[in-house]
Structures are given as structure tokens and as C-alpha cells.
């Protein structure tokens, strides 16, 4: 091992410059070839992409050791790793991390129909030798540790969930120079993540959804590990994935109630960092760039710190109701007398306001409940607790789901200029305001 070990040479393990692998059969006949991907697994292990059942593969299974040359794509520092085969993984987090990365590499090299990951071969690193090469100075980069610290400090100052969601994306832009980002929260009942905040897109896409396993966001959410890609790969592209889903559904209804995914049309680099609580995914922090290879191991580590802090802060925002904030009195005569038609479809709690789709699912059910009460009794203040206890809403167990849905609902109402607003009016309390006379219709 070099003194600094494997973490110090992770830049060589991005698959940007192909690596050299030598193996041998039991007679000692060597085989040497280029390999697309040597993945950093942990301080002691790397994984190689197993794409073809070829001589390298047969040799590895027979003699269980390999010599691999890796190259730093910026400095040309080179190392030779001596590896001992441990096991092959054909599913799970490491496999999905490598499958996504390989898709990017294959697409970049024009080999998308030929490179397919069959397995991740895990090796223990026995030795690392530095090779004498002509080297270039390492480029100066933003200090990611400092960026993570400043981001964590900045977002800790947010006093409610919606502000926290926006603050984290603003801090990514300010400190990490990430211009395009989204935060999505998981709906465990539907196995989909929905956008609660976005930054750097022409439309916000608040409420747009991605299914578990779809594209890098869906894979990161499903596996609970960060997934990143250095070059656009069609099988991970949302443009097509989401259009195909809608087309497969074949229903005008689907098209009418789908909120378009806001992401870049031609991203090159993408990273999806799961937000975990107790080891389970509760959301995904996502960033992308039109430039290739923008998110490496170090960016991944820094964003993992941010996502950890974000998870803690989301948990802290789960208040039960507390003292009411003083509110400016609502002026009755400021409310217009126009009709606001609200139509509810019980099958999936879809709500339309006028002719426009607004929301569905749990957020739709919450809205339908509170506008009905408002219309029947004139009541305008509600508590999170009563929503949580309402069996008709069938809220999942975790509290953050309710809070995040209220943020989603609040943002959709605001974006659609529906004449309906909800605002927090204290800990765990919110107020409904309708600028007109609600006319409710159950479809």
C-alpha cells in the first residue's frame, strides 16, 4: 500500500482514462487488456466491471489475482495495483453505482450497445505502486470541505421546511457552484419521489415525480446510495423515461395530470444523493451539469455530508403544534366574490381548480379535506396533528411525509395562482385562505 492508501488516488478510479489489467491462467499465460472501469469501493477494495465472459474473466476466476494500471485523468500520475479477487456482485448498491457510471462511459465511447455490466468484481488491494510518469499540476478546485461546512451552517438557520428546502439548493449554488439542482421527497405509499424544490430551471417542476428505479434519481432512492454519471446516457435520461411512461400508460388522464420533469434536456454530469434517515431513503438531493465529469468522489463525499445534515434538519422541523404566531387579521372585504371551482376525483385524490390540474395523492386529499371544512364551517385554521390523525387521509407513518406534502401543496397552489393559499401560522399549524367563493364538486 502507498502511505496514503487508496482514498488518495480515487481520481484515477473514475473510468475517464481506461485502465490496464493483466491476469493469468493456471499455466501462467498472461492476458492483458484495457478495462473501462475500476471503481473505488472502500479504503481496502476496488471493483472491476465485468462486461464480457472473456479470457480476463476466466483467468480471474481461476487464479484470483490481477495487476491493474490506473491513471489520474488530470495529472497523469499512474499507479499499479495488485489485486486479490474477493467476490462478484450482480445486484445491489455497488452494482447499480457501477452500472450507471458504465452507461455514461459507454455512451461517451460510442459503445452503448456493447458495454453492459454483468457484474461488479470486488478485489482487495494488496499493493499500490506509484509509477514514474511526466505529471501535470493538479487543477485548483473549490475547497469542498469548506463548501460543505458553510452549506451545513447556512441551512441550519432555516426555520421551516420549505425554507430549508430552498436554502440547501441556494447553498449548493453559492458554495459548490452547482447551477442546476432539485430536492425530491419519497412517497413510500406509491414508491415515487416528488419534487419539492428546484433551482436553475426555466420551470420549477414542483410536484413532478420519478418512480423508484427510474433514471439515476430513482436508482439512488431505491438503493439508498449515491449514483452519479459523467456523460449523458440514454437509458438514464428522464426526457425519454418519463415520456415513455406516459405513453405506455396510454391515457390522456395521465398526460393531463403529469407535472413535467424540470431537468436539463442534455445533461452530461448528474449526481443523485439519497437523503437517509435511519438508513432508509426519505428523499434525494440531485444536481446536474451540461459539462461532463463534474461530480467525482470528493463531490460525492461533500454532498453526502450535506444530505446528512439535511436529514437531521428535516427531522427537527417535524413540530407538533405550538403557540400561534400573531397573524394580520384577514380583511373580509379583501376577498373577491369570484367562484373558485374545485373538483375532486376520489380514485386517486386528484384535484382540479377550474380546468387546471393542481395536485393528486396525499396532498390532494389534504386540500380536499380542508376546503370542504372551510366551505361547510368557515374554518380556516388547521393543525398538522389533526391531519396526521385523520384516518381518511391514510398518511404514512413518517412525519416528514406530511410536512413535505404541505410544502408541495403550498408551492403548487402558489405556482398555479389558484386563488387558494396555505400558510404556516405557528408550529404545526397552517391557515387556508381562499380568494373567492369555493364551489366544490366531487367527480
Amino acid at each position, binding site marked *: 500500500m502507498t502511505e496514503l492508501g487508496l482514498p488518495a488516488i480515487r481520481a484515477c478510479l473514475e473510468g475517464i*482514462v481506461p485502465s*490496464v*489489467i*493483466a*491476469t*493469468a491462467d*493456471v*499455466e*501462467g*499465460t*498472461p*492476458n*492483458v*487488456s*484495457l478495462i473501462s472501469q475500476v471503481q473505488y469501493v472502500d479504503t481496502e477494495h476496488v471493483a472491476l466491471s465485468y462486461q*464480457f465472459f*472473456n*479470457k480476463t474473466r476466466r483467468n480471474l476466476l481461476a487464479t484470483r*489475482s*490481477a*495487476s*491493474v*494500471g490506473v*491513471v489520474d*485523468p*488530470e495529472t*497523469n500520475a*499512474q499507479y*499499479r495495483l*495488485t489485486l486479490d479477487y474477493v467476490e462478484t456482485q450482480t445486484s445491489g448498491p455497488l452494482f447499480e453505482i457501477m452500472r450507471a457510471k458504465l452507461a455514461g462511459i459507454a455512451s*461517451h*465511447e*460510442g*459503445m452503448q450497445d*456493447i*458495454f453492459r455490466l454483468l457484474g461488479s468484481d470486488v478485489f482487495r488491494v*494488496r499493493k499500490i*505502486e506509484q*509509477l*514514474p*510518469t*511526466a*505529471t*501535470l499540476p493538479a487543477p485548483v478546485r473549490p475547497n469542498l470541505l469548506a463548501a460543505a461546512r458553510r452549506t451545513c451552517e447556512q441551512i441550519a438557520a432555516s426555520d421551516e421546511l420549505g425554507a430549508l428546502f430552498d436554502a440547501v439548493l441556494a447553498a449548493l449554488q453559492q458554495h459548490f457552484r452547482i447551477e442546476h439542482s432539485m430536492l425530491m421527497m419519497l412517497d413510500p405509499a406509491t414508491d415515487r419521489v416528488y419534487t419539492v424544490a428546484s433551482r436553475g430551471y426555466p420551470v420549477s417542476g414542483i410536484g413532478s415525480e420519478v418512480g423508484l428505479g427510474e433514471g439515476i434519481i430513482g436508482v439512488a432512492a431505491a438503493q439508498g446510495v449515491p449514483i452519479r454519471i459523467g456523460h449523458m446516457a440514454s437509458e438514464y435520461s428522464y426526457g425519454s423515461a418519463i415520456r415513455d411512461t406516459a405513453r405506455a400508460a396510454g391515457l390522456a388522464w395521465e398526460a393531463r395530470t403529469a407535472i413535467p420533469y424540470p431537468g436539463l434536456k442534455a445533461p452530461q454530469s448528474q449526481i443523485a444523493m439519497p437523503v437517509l434517515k435511519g438508513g432508509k431513503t426519505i428523499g434525494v438531493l440531485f444536481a446536474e451539469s451540461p459539462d461532463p465529469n463534474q461530480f467525482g468522489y470528493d463531490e460525492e463525499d461533500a454532498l453526502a455530508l450535506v444530505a446528512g445534515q439535511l436529514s437531521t434538519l428535516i427531522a427537527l422541523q417535524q413540530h407538533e403544534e405550538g403557540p400561534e404566531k400573531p397573524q394580520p387579521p384577514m380583511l373580509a372585504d379583501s376577498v373577491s366574490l369570484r367562484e373558485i371551482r374545485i373538483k375532486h376525483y376520489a380514485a386517486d385524490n386528484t384535484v382540479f381548480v377550474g380546468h387546471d390540474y393542481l395536485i393528486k395523492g396525499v396532498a390532494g386529499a389534504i386540500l380536499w379535506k380542508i376546503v370542504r371544512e372551510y366551505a361547510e364551517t368557515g374554518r380556516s385554521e388547521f393543525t398538522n396533528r389533526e391531519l396526521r390523525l385523520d384516518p381518511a387521509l391514510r398518511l404514512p407513518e413518517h412525519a416528514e411525509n406530511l410536512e413535505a406534502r404541505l410544502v408541495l401543496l403550498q408551492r403548487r397552489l402558489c405556482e398555479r395562482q389558484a386563488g387558494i393559499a396555505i400558510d404556516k401560522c405557528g408550529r404545526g399549524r397552517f391557515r387556508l385562505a381562499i380568494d373567492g367563493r369555493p364551489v366544490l364538486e366531487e367527480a
Partner: protein
Amino acid sequence: MPRASQPHSPESDLAARRAYVAVESAPHVLAPDLAEFCQSGISVIVGACVAGETPVAATGYACRLMPGNRFRLVLRKLGNEGLLEAVERGGAIAATFSQPTTHRSIQIKGSGAVVLPADEEDRREALRQTDGLRLELIYIGYPPAFAAAYRHVAEDDLVAVDLTPDAAFVQTPGPGAGAELKP
């Protein structure tokens, strides 16, 4: 610049080799166009192994077709001591030649390898062939400064490894990859 704008297929080299009818009594393992391909200024990678030990991988500078059906690899000495030692202890050797712009790749397996001092022609070929690879790398999008560093030749630290090629294999990714090139 998309990489591999003219991808090659394993089948074309296999078909060409089948069509090649050697006229010599002791034909080369490689048809003439493949021998030329290997020396054309592309990527040269090398592996050596003593039976029962872990193989050693290395990057080479150049290769040369030598008289008497011998093949020469030109490498840097420093950093490759383990590989050279394996050769000197009678280890077997393999070398793969790959063209980045096409992914066309050929591997040869050799025996009777010996380590020799590099000569002036080796030095010239190392410079010429690494320059060819440098241009290929720039063509597929590597930054010129990186390509130059990657293919920098330590001219005063060269060594030659001569071997007799016993077999050649097509290594271009795709169906047929790994097949032996034989008539």
C-alpha cells in the same frame, strides 16, 4: 468529439485473417496488415507472468517486428522492474495493441522472451509511435497537455523485450472478441 467515431468490429479482423494465405514456409502469427497496425502508433500494453505468481501489468512505448519472426516491445525500465524480472525468470508475456479512435485491438501471446538493452532504432520508434498515440488521444478529446504527458518518453531509460509470438487474438470489444486469429 465523440470517442470511437469509426468503431471497428472483431469480425472484420477475423475474416481478414482467414483470407490471408501465408506464402512463407514459416508464416508470421500476424498478417502483414496487423503487424503494420501494431507498429502504427497506438496503445501498447503488456502483461508478464511466472506460473503460479501474480501477473504484472505495464504500459509500453512501442513495438517492432524483428528478423526471425521475433517481436520487440520497447518499455521504460524504471517502474517495470517486476515485469522485467518475471521475463528474466522465464515468465510468459502478452501484449495488446489498441487504437483509441476505433477500439480495434489485437493481443499477441509470446514465449522465449528476453530482456535486452534498447538501441537507437528503439528510441526512434518509441518517439514516433508514442507521438501517433498522442495524436489519437487528442483526436478523441483528451486535452493536448494530458496527451503529451501520458505519452512522454523517458528516452534515457528504455529497455527492449524480444519475444516469439505464438498466437494472436482479436480483442476489439463486440461479438467475436477474444477469438484467435488463425487461417
